[in-house]
């Protein structure tokens, strides 16, 4: 095993070009955003926990419960991003891993090298996350709850910070191991052991059962019920979401007549879970925005002068964090896909395919699931909010702004990977006299 680690040390950071290093950088960025977001969420939670220690202050208890609910909503997309970061570089180390196997490395050694790489990215990302958390702290102390600004001492996690970092790193290793169990590293390349399978209808059944069972269970879960509700909603959304995306892919695949639509539909059908990841956070944004609009109205009944404003502030923070996590996820996934499929994109460019055609397909792949989420979850939420139109005229507008902002951020993250695509289809980059094209596998030196 030590020889494997020595080999990893030798190989680390070496790549023939920028494109071979970029996925590693993207993985570190994803880990950093996941860790930073997690630390900010936990810091905020700690602040409310410290404030709830005042004896007899029931409002502080209510704030703590609301903070736990918000944290519960945010933690799942954050951890999902962490897991995604761990998987990013695993499936695209094909050539190197296959070469190592060809040179006589055992499967155990290949796994050890891969894990060491993921671990190093997770540690670097986690440290970056601490930096992001540190940079965010002064900004967070500008935010007031119940008329008092959050203090640095309340937000600083101290020793808990190390525990959070360890959790992110353990998550990375577990995600890597789970992914590695699904691929076979052979001397001839890295092959996925299974073809993409259709998601089971059981997902939808379980989600519906959870929804039906909720009214029965809720009375038995008084205070903690809110927290269970938050986690339950996230679970239902994530169970049914990929299934809906798969159905969308099925419908679009059979209806598609032109190339951009066909490719986008096939990709949705191929990997609905990945497509859903951007949308799951978007669905959460819709839910939080909807709940906050209600809560802002309900909280303005005069029982507590700050409650309405504070709920709006807390919701805004939740929406921003979830949106940033969703955008990071979408950006990183699409950038890596461009790098992975650069040879195919290049071959399409050789055959005369315009960049706009490829771009249009990528846009459909992201925008359609977002649109379906907005129409279903958003439409339902908007219906709920309509009666508030007279009581709180700004509620519907704020809701619409939150939705538009979150979707725009995800689409902007997609657009950020466009230069990579443009580079992948450029045919005048040194042609057969550079190593880049040979590495991409399309051109051979001649």
């Amino acid at each position, binding site marked *: 095993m030590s020889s494997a680690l020595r080999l990893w040390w030798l190989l680390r950071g070496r790549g023939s070009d920028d494109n071979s290093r970029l996925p590693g950088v993207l993985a570190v960025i994803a880990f950093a955003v996941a860790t930073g977001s997690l630390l900010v969420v936990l810091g905020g939670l700690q602040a409310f926990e410290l404030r709830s220690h005042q004896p007899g202050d029931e409002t502080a208890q209510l704030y703590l419960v609301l903070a736990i609910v918000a944290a519960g909503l945010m933690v799942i997309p954050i951890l999902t991003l962490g897991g995604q970061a761990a998987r990013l570089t695993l499936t695209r180390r094909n050539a190197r891993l296959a070469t190592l196997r060809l040179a006589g490395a055992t499967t155990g050694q290949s796994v050890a090298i891969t894990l060491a790489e993921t671990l190093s990215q997770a540690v670097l990302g986690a440290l970056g996350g601490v930096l992001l958390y540190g940079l965010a702290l002064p900004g967070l102390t500008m935010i007031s709850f119940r008329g008092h600004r959050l203090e640095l001492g309340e937000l600083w996690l101290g020793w808990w910070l190390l525990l959070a970092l360890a959790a992110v790193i353990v998550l990375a290793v577990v995600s890597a191991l789970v992914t590695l169990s699904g691929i076979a590293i052979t001397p001839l390349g890295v092959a996925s052991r299974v073809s993409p399978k259709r998601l089971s209808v059981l997902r939808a059944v379980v989600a519906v059962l959870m929804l039906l069972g909720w009214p029965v269970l809720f009375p038995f879960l008084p205070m903690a019920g809110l927290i269970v509700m938050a986690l339950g909603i996230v679970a239902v959304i994530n169970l049914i979401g990929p299934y809906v995306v798969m159905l969308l892919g099925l419908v679009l695949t059979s209806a598609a007549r*032109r190339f951009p639509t066909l*490719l986008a539909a096939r990709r949705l059908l191929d990997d609905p879970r990945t497509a859903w990841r951007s949308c799951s956070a978007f669905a959460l944004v819709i839910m939080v925005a909807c709940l906050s609009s209600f809560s802002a109205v309900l909280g303005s009944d005069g029982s507590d002068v700050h409650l309405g404003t504070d709920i709006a502030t807390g919701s805004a923070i939740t929406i921003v964090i979830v949106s940033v996590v969703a955008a990071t996820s979408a950006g990183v996934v699409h950038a890596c896909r461009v790098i992975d499929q650069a040879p195919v994109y290049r071959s*399409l460019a050789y055959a*005369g395919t315009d960049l706009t*055609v490829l771009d249009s397909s990528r846009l459909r792949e992201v925008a359609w699931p977002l649109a379906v989420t907005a129409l279903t979850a958003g439409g339902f939420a908007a219906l709920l909010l309509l009666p508030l139109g007279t009581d709180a005229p700004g509620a519907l507008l704020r809701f619409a702004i939150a939705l538009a902002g979150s979707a725009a951020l995800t689409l902007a993250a997609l657009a950020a990977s466009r230069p990579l695509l443009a580079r992948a289809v450029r045919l*005048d980059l040194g042609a057969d006299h550079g190593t880049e094209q040979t590495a991409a596998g399309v051109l051979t030196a*001649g």
Partner: protein
Amino acid sequence: MSHTQFPVPGNVPGVAHPADGTRSPVREGLVATGLVHRYTRRAEETPALAGVDLTVSPGESMSIMGPSGSGKTTLLHVLAGVIRPTHGSVLWQGRDLARMRDAERSRLRRTDFGFVFQSGQLLPELPAEENAALPLLLAGVDRGTAVARVRPILERLGLAGMVHRRPGELSGGQAQRVAIARALAGSPGVVFADEPTGALDSTTGAAVMAQLVAASRAHGAALVVVTHDAGVAHACARQVTMRDGLITHDSITGHRAEAIR
């Protein structure tokens, strides 16, 4: 070598095909004159073509061989309008590719040329029939029509039962046959192949090469193959050898030139 009968796809929008679905006769073929090309990278110039004259006749199969760095892939790219030569001209249907804008050359590659690469380069999410139909789909042909047109080609290439399989479910040889079907789908005038058997074992490679030559001939397309493999080169009717950016041997013209050292 036995040559199977390959069906020829029908008309494609944007491609000047006659009513019977076949390409209009190309009398001149592809005529390259005085090709010189230099790559510039970090202010350093690397000569790749040092003065190449070459005519690819309609329907002929030609291999270009030579050691690494001899300029054979650059020549293929210049002939296919992928890159513009530093000097010289490439005439196709009376038009000079070297003078065309990028968008025009892209359109021409889409409609008049087909490409086969070393490892197929198929889209992993699309089944074989949709991968093969890509040129037609990109030309704006309706999916149903496009797939119906390429199915006979896939069947002739021995892929009848595999049209719904993804590239990941195909062997290297099968994937390369899909790539051949894709190259021929748009009824190209010329098929350019860059090491088409480079990723295959010798037996599969020979079979794939035979099918590439036969299928191109059946479609009336000229075939230009860049290869390191003498066996692959001899599957073509004409062999051209390059060294240091020059053609040093041409089996048809008997031409020999002293390579520039």
